[in-house]
């Protein structure tokens, strides 16, 4: 068994910290724009928009739980269970992206909020960057799943993938309240 706190895990932490700065910059700029524009658009009704985004949040949280179980299964040397839980995590990511794209489509066509508006540019930049991270995570975990099934990769590789996935979840814990809940119709 390899050391799960090796150089790959350390490298992932460094990457995540730099990525954290990217999201922090975006969210701080979003907050500054909100302060500077008193009449900030509040397009989200509790039903269906906030209910919809709450479901997205629960889906992402659930995919984090299945990722924890994938890492735990790999630590026990159970590659079959690892591949199964990684598959469940990937499914959660795909469902999240599907729900997100549905929401974007609704916003653009029903509410006429496009990236050309101030709210739209901020909203699509923040949520788009996050969705790109989720899509990247789906590809990353798919490669890990294929490798695990063929007896490639070790415990540290799965732990490293888990760190990335949990980080994507962690960032959403700030995006959801600041971008969605603070823009609920009054």
């Amino acid at each position, binding site marked *: 068994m390899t050391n799960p706190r090796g150089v790959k895990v350390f490298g992932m932490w460094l990457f995540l910290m730099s990525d954290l700065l990217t999201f922090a910059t975006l969210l701080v700029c979003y907050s500054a724009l909100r*302060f500077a524009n008193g009449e900030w658009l509040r397009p989200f009704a509790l039903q269906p928009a906030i209910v919809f985004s*709450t479901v997205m949040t629960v889906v992402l949280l659930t995919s984090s739980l299945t990722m924890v179980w994938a890492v735990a299964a790999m630590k026990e040397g159970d590659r079959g269970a690892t591949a199964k839980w990684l598959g469940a995590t990937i499914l959660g990511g795909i469902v999240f992206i599907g729900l997100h794209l549905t929401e974007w489509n609704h916003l653009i066509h029903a509410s006429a909020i496009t990236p050309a508006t101030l709210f739209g540019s901020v909203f699509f930049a923040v949520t788009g960057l996050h969705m790109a991270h989720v899509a990247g995570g789906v590809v990353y975990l798919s490669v890990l799943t294929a490798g695990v099934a063929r007896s490639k990769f070790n415990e540290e590789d799965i732990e490293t993938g888990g760190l990335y996935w949990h980080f994507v979840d962690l960032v959403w814990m700030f995006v959801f309240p600041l971008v969605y809940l603070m823009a609920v119709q009054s």
Partner: protein
Amino acid sequence: MTNVRVWLALVALTLIEVALAWVKTAPGLMVALLLALSFAKAAMIAWWFMHLKDYRPKPLLLLLPFLFVCVGLLLVLLPDGVRAGAMR
């Protein structure tokens, strides 16, 4: 079992956030409460799901420079946002 409890707590905190929006909490109070809940949820994810609790030594010193930059960004940019809003 602990991980399932953490997940349940995260979902519960998310529902509390939604409830704050539902009861139409005052914006200033709401942003303060939402940020507090977000940091609590982020800490729970990092501590249990990312296994920060198992790290020896804990890489908290690694986090400090990044925290410094994040707080610095807030201090530099937010006053500009407030000032620009007041100038209208």
